[in-house]
């Protein structure tokens, strides 16, 4: 407890989930209005609990001191959440805006279907990272697992490490940037020319994620758009 308190920002209100109820935590954070002066919050002893800090609609800072379970920061709309540990499946799912920074690794479906905001994962993310993403920016400093960016619609996925099999399968308009090896590309995903616009976007995201990786070391992938209209001649591609 004392160690955790020290980790919290000065002035932060502390929720210790060893004793506080999840509903009290989420209810309090969801009940904040835009004029609140209490912008710093700390969560202690998350102990892998699910649905921590979901549905916050104010730009407050929430630091979670430990590992979290499923859907941490789900549908976040403005908060800046730091997870000092690993995150379970669906971290930042359907995020609308704000940011989530996972200092450890993330399980599958990180940033799934998210519309906006920034998700930074310092470690690795496993399967289906950015699945059906709809505008979010995701930066993974390690590797991503198979089927990442499956049916990704828009936004940017940056992978500093390697990508697993079937990257970007059935991709729509999301941009994928990978520095390491790609095990294989999914249906209708192809390497794209690296435009100046791409380079600007990537440089900005790397800067926001605190990475000094060189833009020139990345390859850019996107949709070949051959499956945008169903045609029987493409049936073998699925």
């Amino acid at each position, binding site marked *: 407890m004392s160690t955790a308190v020290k980790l919290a920002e000065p002035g932060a209100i502390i929720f210790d989930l060893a004793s506080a109820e999840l509903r009290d935590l989420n209810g309090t954070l969801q009940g904040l209005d835009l004029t609140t002066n209490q912008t710093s919050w700390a969560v202690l002893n998350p102990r892998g609990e699910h649905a921590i800090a979901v549905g916050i609609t104010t730009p407050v800072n929430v630091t979670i001191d430990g590992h979290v379970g499923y859907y941490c920061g789900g549908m976040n709309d403005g908060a800046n959440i730091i997870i000092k540990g690993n995150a379970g*499946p669906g971290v930042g799912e359907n995020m609308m805006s704000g940011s989530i920074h996972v200092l450890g690794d993330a399980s599958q479906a990180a940033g799934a*279907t998210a519309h906006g905001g920034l998700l930074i994962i310092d470690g690795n993310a496993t399967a289906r990272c950015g699945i059906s993403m709809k505008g979010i920016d995701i930066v993974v400093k390690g590797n991503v697992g198979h089927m990442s960016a499956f049916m990704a619609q828009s936004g940017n996925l940056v992978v500093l490490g390697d990508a697993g099999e079937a990257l970007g399968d059935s991709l729509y308009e999301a941009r994928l940037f990978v520095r390491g090896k790609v095990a294989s590309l999914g249906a209708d995903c192809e390497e794209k020319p690296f435009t100046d616009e791409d380079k600007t976007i990537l440089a900005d995201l790397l800067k926001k994620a605190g990475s000094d990786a060189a833009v020139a070391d990345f390859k850019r992938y996107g949709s070949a758009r051959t499956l945008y209209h169903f045609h029987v001649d493409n049936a073998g591609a699925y």
Partner: protein
Amino acid sequence: MNETSAPHIPQTPPRFSATFDPYTVAEIQRAAATGIYDIRGGGSKRKLPHFDDLLFLGASVSRYPLEGYRERCGTDVILGTRFAKKPIHLKIPVTIAGMSFGSLSANAKEALGRGATAAGTSTTTGDGGMTPEERGHSETLIYQYLPSRYGMNLADLRKADAIEVVIGQGAKPGGGGMLLGQKISPRVAQMRNLPEGIDQRSACRHPDWTGPDDLEIKILELRELTNWEKPIYIKVGASRPYYDVTLAIKAGADVVVLDGMQGGTAATQEVFIEHVGIPILAAIRPAVQALQDLGLHRKVQLIVSGGIRTGADVAKALALGADAVAIGTAALIALGDNAPELESEYKKLGTTAGAYDDWHEGRDPAGITTQDDKLAARLDPVKAGHRLANYLSVLTLEAQAIARACGKSHLHNLEPEDLVALNIEAAAMAQVPLAGTSWIPGKTTGF
């Protein structure tokens, strides 16, 4: 040489094969010409065991009826009493099933909201999100949470009166969807965050959970997102109803929605619609059994759908143990779909009023299953909503008439004991006696 008249030999008329019937032959020819399967809207069109195969016994010496038009027969239903802080109270047990803006026009969605609200019941969003027209005209709106999460956002989630987690639908259990490019208008594209005019696929699996254990956690998240206020429905297509309902309950559902294979879809392969899933008649009793085995019948509510057309269907579904029904295809017909006055336009599309099912093409002359502005403008949402309200009223009055005849003071007092079946198949599926006997196939022996 004597002229003799040739003996008259009777000719047999051309005989069509029962196996290779004219429709089947035409389908083979169509497939051979195109190399692609047939896609259409709607639900199963083949003859299936259905509510028509059941009859109510009515009251006589051993049962005491209620006076028609005089004695009260309640129709209301409360949904979401298990965990939600704010259960839904509807005046009638007939709800409007989920149908998307995208597959339907904005006017059609508005009309559904208007009609449902006038009748005191709920309507439901679909794949594609919630429109202001729909929310504004729907007193009680159920927000579907689908695998694609098109249009899903926190603000709309909190505006909903309940959340329906869609796992499947009766027309295509295990299948996703495809909205063809001609229906991806600028507005639909913007709501779904997709390029205009492309064929848009709806996933068949949720992106961030797999299986009932994960679903339980997903429901926890949805409740935490909405202050535990809103009832959580889980919708499944009828295939393994006993196990699916059991798992839905285990995952924490307040309400289970069970959709039979007659339930409609905006667009799916004909072969999928006709050959995957089971009729709603066969699904209700196993679902109710699952609820009863867990001691949660009437505590977790059951909504059934797929082929509900009349008040008799409503009454039969409730008698078999459902708490409410949902209608989709019938609601569209009430709005004006397949209206005979549009026959000349249906003919131009190669079909006829009553059979039009190419809802995916977006050329609906009734202005319902389209995103074409000119076609959509043909549907007056006020008048169409009024027609739907009328129809909902008739369904309710018919169900009440039957319930009173069975001596029931509320539609929920109808029970399997009020029913018999006209054939062995229906008796086995509905688990009610074959008419004139006490035989329930699979349950009892002898007559």
